[in-house]
């Protein structure tokens, strides 16, 4: 609670299993990449501090399980997110086609106040693979993003650290826009009217 300028943002990463959600997060936070695949169980959490427009922002990154059998964390889990990152594998057509359902699922469960303008970011990962394996073209991905209200789109490689920093900077920036400073300070509650107060309770006998 030290500084007024500090703010913490909840960022949720969603997408099919094996598209590289955990790798992206690890590359971004720890600057590390491992070729070994380990399924995320439930969720992992990482924290990273970044500066966005002179403001110190703590990103609380919620890395979720892509595999259905580990998705049992409940509807309250997505609640109060500031940004949702949708990840697919550019070499895997199915992982792109499920983005729609990931997005819908998030909007239903998180039920943000203004779903039309809720910040999403889409990442097409694994662009380090050879071109012949590519299954989803950049154009196709961008068209989809445009149709969903101009979602920012990045093509990334967690393995070779391409565009990762850039993408997360945009994520932080867009999430921060959700955090516009509402003026709660002047929202002083009504004064207590003593005469109307007839509450009875286990009081101190003195």
């Amino acid at each position, binding site marked *: *609670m*030290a*500084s*007024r*300028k*500090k*703010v*913490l943002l*909840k960022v949720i990463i969603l997408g099919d299993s094996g598209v590289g959600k955990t790798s992206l997060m690890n590359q971004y936070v720890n600057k590390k990449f491992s070729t070994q695949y380990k399924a995320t169980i*439930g*969720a992992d*959490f*990482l*924290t990273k*501090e970044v500066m966005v427009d*002179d403001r*110190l922002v*703590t990103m*609380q990154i*919620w890395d979720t399980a892509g595999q259905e059998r580990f998705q*049992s*964390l*409940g*509807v*309250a*889990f997505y*609640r*109060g*997110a*500031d940004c949702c990152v949708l990840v697919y594998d550019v070499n895997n057509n199915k992982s792109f086609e499920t983005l729609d359902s990931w997005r819908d699922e998030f909007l239903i469960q998180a039920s943000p*106040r203004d779903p039309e303008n809720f910040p999403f970011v889409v990442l097409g990962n694994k662009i380090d693979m050879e071109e012949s394996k590519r299954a989803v073209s950049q154009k196709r991905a961008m068209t989809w993003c445009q149709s969903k209200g101009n979602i920012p789109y990045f093509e990334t490689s967690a393995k070779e650290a391409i565009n990762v920093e850039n993408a997360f900077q945009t994520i932080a920036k867009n999430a921060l826009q*959700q*955090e516009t*400073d*509402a003026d*709660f*300070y002047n*929202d*002083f*509650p*009504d*004064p*207590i*009217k*003593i005469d109307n*107060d*007839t*509450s009875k*309770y*286990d*009081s*101190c*006998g*003195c």
Partner: protein
Amino acid sequence: MSNDHSNVPVISVDEEYSGYRRKYGHEDPQSVNWCRHRKHFFILSSAGKPIYTRYGDESRISGYTGVIQAIVSFFVDAEDSIRCINAGNHKFVFLLKGPLYLVAVSRTNESETQLRDQLNYLYNQILSVLTSTQLTRIFEQRINYDLRLLLGGTEPFLDNLATSMSDEPGFMLGSIQCVRMNKELRDKIGSILQIVKSKDLLYAMLIANNKLITLLRPKRHSLHSADLHLIFNMVNGSSTFRSAESWTPICLPKFNNKGFLHAYVCYITGNVCLLLISPDKDKFFELSDAKSIIVEELTSCNALQAIEEVSQSEGYSIADVGAAGLRHFIYKSRKHVQYTSPTFMAPYNDPHEKQKLFKLYRYTHDRMHSRIRPLKVHYYVSPTETILGWITSTFELYAAFGPLISKSALTNSSHTLLKWIKKEEENLFILNSQVF
């Protein structure tokens, strides 16, 4: 930041000086030392955003608060709510209060109920700063809200409360302690407070060292001990009250959790603090004038000097009681919701020994208040003490004797203690507070 050194602020913007340095504020939540603390408290929003941690920097425990949120969410899905996890020596106790989740992680011997009571005190402390109206409204509008933005600066009060709850039996007992004082003197002070009663005034009180000297209140509004604990915690939690007349909004949740009262706070001697509480936020000057009148009257009858002297003395010793074999005790008057306890003499003046004694009291308290099978009398022999717990319709007693005392000696000694308390009752407790 520019390279021109003349532009560099004395305190870097990244680490804005908040005027308060926490003892364990920079501890790394991954470190052994951080894990070793006996009792952690965490407060987070229902979105999993950290709001408070007793140790370390809350923004660095956001991974843990994420896990907590995930666990809570898992049970919410099954229309259930998690209450407690027992893991080896550790207890994880959860209190879910709408938009706020409070969690204690403890390896003290405190019971689930005792820890949950403590979480309730912390919750009330947050309400005292925000009111439940404001808290609810904020999260209704913005469930992702980072509540630290509104609570900033109140961390010392949560820290102070967390410490007090381990050191003072009043929280466990749900009662407060009064300054032991000659009844005539207390009455005289009370009648002086009566002079300033007005429609601007709801409560007037004098306190010293977290103990109540006297209280003036309207006939229809008594004051709950939980609210008094918040008042004590406020006065005790900040040194600023010692240096000036202060005027601060405060919500007393048991009185009314929906709105603020306003407290005029001023030390009238080195130890004695006067509080005048009003429902009206514009009455600082009226209450400041009232204070002057009170001080003048107290001075003219030499009461001010007398109160200061009493408040400087450390209370009474176990020897004053004259009960053979009795080492220490806590006596709560159930009717008056007040307790009394002698000073901690050897060996309990040693913090370690004192904690050990507290541990035995806590254990006894928990056994006696068991929801499944509450007890009237509990007799427990540890290697170092024998603890008697005794609850009747009028009192609750926890008394410590040597480990070898016979039951008959213990009974005799307890009766001696009760007789002494009866004789001293009007000096130990406020039996009838001043009303108007």
